[in-house]
């Protein structure tokens, strides 16, 4: 497959992490995807703030299965942020401490956050090969999460499923 002429859908797997909603409680619990067939996961978070916003507290979870199984925090140390997508498309590399961050709370702004996960970031020795986004505490905003799985381990017409073990 020629990476210059092939389509993105032929090289990457696009999965809905969270459908549009206030990213809190169960609506903020992202779908789990398995990275056993992929080397990279890009998590794209889009948020539209209303007014009197409570930011979304974002963490990542690693798990041993796409449903059930054991879970624990997935450490990550940076993300890329654009806190005004109406004004710019520049993503600013931003450090994350304690494996969590809270989204911007400026009224009426459209936000984008991108988190990159490498398969080797997971505790593979412990059987953890799945990842999920977790958003909490959001109020007066609507957000959605898109997973883009890339660097498939095997070539095919389309990348293999990521929401099954």
């Amino acid at each position, binding site marked *: 497959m020629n990476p210059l002429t092939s389509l993105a859908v032929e090289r990457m797997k696009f999965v809905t992490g969270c459908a549009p909603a206030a990213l809190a409680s169960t609506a903020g619990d992202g779908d789990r995807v398995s990275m056993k067939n992929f080397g990279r996961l890009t998590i794209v978070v889009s948020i539209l703030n209303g007014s009197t916003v409570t930011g979304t507290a974002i963490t990542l979870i690693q798990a041993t299965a796409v449903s059930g199984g054991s879970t624990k925090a997935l450490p990550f140390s940076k993300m890329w*942020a654009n806190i005004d997508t109406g004004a710019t498309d520049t993503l*600013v590399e931003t450090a994350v401490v304690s494996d969590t961050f809270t989204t911007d709370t400026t009224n009426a702004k459209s936000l984008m956050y991108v988190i990159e996960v490498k398969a080797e970031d997971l505790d593979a020795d412990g059987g953890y090969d799945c990842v999920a986004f977790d958003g909490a505490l959001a109020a007066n905003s609507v957000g959605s999460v898109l997973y883009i799985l890339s660097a498939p381990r095997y070539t095919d017409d389309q990348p293999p499923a990521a929401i099954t073990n």
Partner: protein
Amino acid sequence: MRKVLLTSIPVAGYGTAGDTVTVSDEIAKELVERCLGEDQGEATAEPKVAVEDAKAPMAAPVVSPAAKVREQTKK
């Protein structure tokens, strides 16, 4: 609590490069270990303003003897 100068890139929830932030000892340690900031030492409390001094009435204006004479002359 410690003061840390953020040196490299923005740190989510804390500030951007060039900012000096006051953070917990634990966060300060993480920032320094990850080369995100320079420890500027223990954060000391801001000096307290003496409330009594702030509320003290202003002293009466000093009127020179010549001014008193001029005031009496007007009358």
